[in-house]
């Protein structure tokens, strides 16, 4: 356990020193057209599934992507593996922008970026043997000579904890957890540098989930694979990822290292999400846990609310939230939040902290004297950030008072 702690520290130091991110996503957008019915199918609107998402995944690290269904987390994963073509934005994998590659140019990149799918029943072809499933990426990408394919397949099956003698069985002969292992073996066949895991355990039984999470944990340590871990289960994400991003309706509302996000979340949505998770430890107290209730459902991404997208369900929403969209603002060393009133639970500020940065007054109307600052939407973290207590820019060094926000 001590060594794990050391590893975590090492990853953190690498982050801090601005270590190489293996994947950098900047202002990624995916708008699906909505067509009218009838003979001439005109585009009548767009589902803004992913709308301006930026993040980094460090080499050998793991970023968790959480949110409710329909928030665009799976679409983000599918964009990175180029299963969809993004509307705009950049997906830089080791410096190459995947978003602009043609399918032919994309092929060699697929070796490095692989995906694990959610449903172990529909993601394996029932008419192919396990050997054929796991070997097909090897053959497609010419990874090993033909006579070595079988031994490599057996090796892979062993790595994921399956009996290597079972290569000639069909998927229906395996249980859910074992099938998920087959999917993992297929993803590992090309020795990827980045694995996009889209809800890898949510279709599995509780006791099997832990087996698969532990397997992914071991694989990451052994092969140094970076993970983009997409899940709705906050506890599993917390267990697996040192850094976590929370999405709501196509946007990242808060991104931070695990300790900050789970212990000191600043966005009201993150706070509500965390308080909604039922806790086994509640058994010692009895009854329902005190929680923040958010009413209603997620609004439609075809016609999202103006300003802040969470405002329709937010207990803190004020006038400014409907008028101006809060920028994803860095408020700590590794902590960004998109809210006009960010703060720990019960300590949200009365006045919007973002008003001056955006050049508006406290109600969100344009302020003639204000000078808006363009914060942009950079994927990484900067060395300076907006200090919420002092209401000014602060930095990692002691020169925190030299810069002003305006």
């Amino acid at each position, binding site marked *: 356990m001590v060594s794990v702690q050391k590893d975590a520290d090492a990853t953190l130091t690498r982050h801090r020193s601005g270590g190489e991110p293996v994947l950098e996503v900047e202002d990624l957008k995916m708008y699906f057209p909505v067509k009218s019915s009838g003979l001439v199918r005109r585009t009548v609107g767009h589902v803004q599934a992913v709308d301006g998402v930026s993040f980094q995944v460090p080499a050998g690290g793991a970023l968790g992507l959480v949110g409710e269904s329909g928030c665009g987390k799976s679409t983000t994963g599918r964009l990175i593996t180029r299963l969809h073509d993004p509307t705009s934005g950049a997906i830089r994998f080791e410096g190459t922008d995947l978003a602009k590659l043609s399918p032919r140019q994309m092929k060699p990149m697929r070796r490095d970026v692989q995906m694990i799918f959610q449903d172990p029943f529909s993601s394996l072809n029932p008419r192919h043997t396990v050997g054929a499933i796991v070997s097909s990426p090897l053959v497609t990408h010419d990874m090993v000579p033909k006579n070595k394919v079988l031994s490599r397949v057996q090796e892979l099956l062993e790595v994921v904890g399956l009996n290597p003698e079972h290569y000639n069985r069909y998927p229906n002969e395996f249980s859910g957890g074992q099938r998920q292992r087959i999917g993992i073996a297929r993803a590992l066949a090309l020795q990827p540098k980045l694995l996009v895991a889209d809800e890898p355990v949510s279709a599995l039984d509780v006791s099997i989930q832990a087996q698969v999470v*532990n397997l992914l944990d071991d694989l990451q340590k052994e092969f140094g694979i970076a993970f983009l871990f997409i899940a709705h289960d906050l506890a599993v994400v917390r267990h697996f990822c040192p850094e976590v991003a929370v999405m709501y309706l196509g946007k990242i509302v808060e991104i931070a290292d695990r300790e900050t996000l789970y212990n000191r979340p600043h966005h009201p949505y993150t706070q509500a*999400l965390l308080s909604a998770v039922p806790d086994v430890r509640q058994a010692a107290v009895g009854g329902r846990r005190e929680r923040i209730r958010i009413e209603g459902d997620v609004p439609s991404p075809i016609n999202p609310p103006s300003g802040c997208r969470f405002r329709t369900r937010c207990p803190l929403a004020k006038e400014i939230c409907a008028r101006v969209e809060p920028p994803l603002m860095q408020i700590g060393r590794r902590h960004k939040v998109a809210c006009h009133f960010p703060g720990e639970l019960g300590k949200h500020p009365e006045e919007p902290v973002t008003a001056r940065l955006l050049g508006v007054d406290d109600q969100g109307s344009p302020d003639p004297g204000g000078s808006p600052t363009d914060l942009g939407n950079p994927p990484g973290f900067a060395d300076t950030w907006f200090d919420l207590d002092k209401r000014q820019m602060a930095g990692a060094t002691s020169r925190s008072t030299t810069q002003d926000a305006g």
Partner: protein
Amino acid sequence: MSTDTGVTTGAAGAAAAGERLLEVEHLTVKFPTADGLVNAVTDLSYGVARGKTLGIVGESGSGKSVSSMAVLGLHDPRRTRIEGSIRVDGQEVIGLSEAKLRRIRGNSAAMIFQDALASLHPFYRVGKQLSEAYAAHHPKASARDARRKAIEMLDLVGIPQPDRRVDDFPHQFSGGMRQRAMIAMGLINDPSLLIADEPTTALDVTVQAQILDLLGDLQREFDSAIIIITHDLGVIAEMADEVLVMYAGRAVEYGATRELLTHPEMPYTWGLLSSVPDVSGDVDARLLPIPGNPPSLLDPPSGCSFHPRCVHRDKVPGDLCTTTIPDLSPGGRGPGHLKRCHLADPERIYATEILPEIAPDLADGAPAAPAAAPTNKEA
């Protein structure tokens, strides 16, 4: 000392079996198939009182849904062999004719299914489906009465603008709203027993919290008995008064929620607790999965059905685990807490081997915490 009081209350509840709304005794359900006889449920006994909630936990295939479907007589009698006794409000359900079962279904006992989209008819308006359920048990009610009742129920479960949404089709509802509509349909005839089969599994956590709150509110209002079937121990911890842990068709542990989840005595329950990460737990604590897979119910293992996956088997003398099925009997913590295990001193193993692994922060204070908890309740 105060712990004992808690246990005796549980025992008193068990003793006063006559007051229980639902009483399941020695229920055995078998399905003859081409491959042989599937022993889906074996010798299962439990009960729920009015206003109380029973949580049933277990993996898929542990028989939790099969047993609760038997309560509503949903198994085809030609393809099922059911033995034992199920009494709903004193009425024996097993062997009842289809016509009489219908009078119970939806009226005194109702069920909420996991997948609300699949359980609502896609061609009929939500209001129509609700009022049909009402009219079925109120033959004298006019169509207008039934519609009014449907709107009233939709309002009760928190659907906005119920007088307009009543004419929507199921696909126009969101996942959470569909589940609410299912609950409305289940409650439309004021059943005294509500069986919720994984009511929130397909939902997001925020919606899950809304639905669980709703179930709790409705239970207080109607004083109904609820059975919640789930695999999420967190839901159990917050909702249930009693817990039944099932494995391979049998009850393996049964007791009051607080008692059972703070002092589990069966290795399978330990496994369930240790294989789920905790939102507030230690991130470095490794998950301890239960090795292997659930057994086939066609050919259940000899002896204790959990023995092939049990890591504590070597602590039992001889080959007891592989030859003899342990009884569901009270452990060292009083008659209110039943467990099916041969381990002689499970409490010590849990405190010294399991708890430090899954919750190091609780392990130190473990002896103090349970003693303190019931005291709070009395105060």
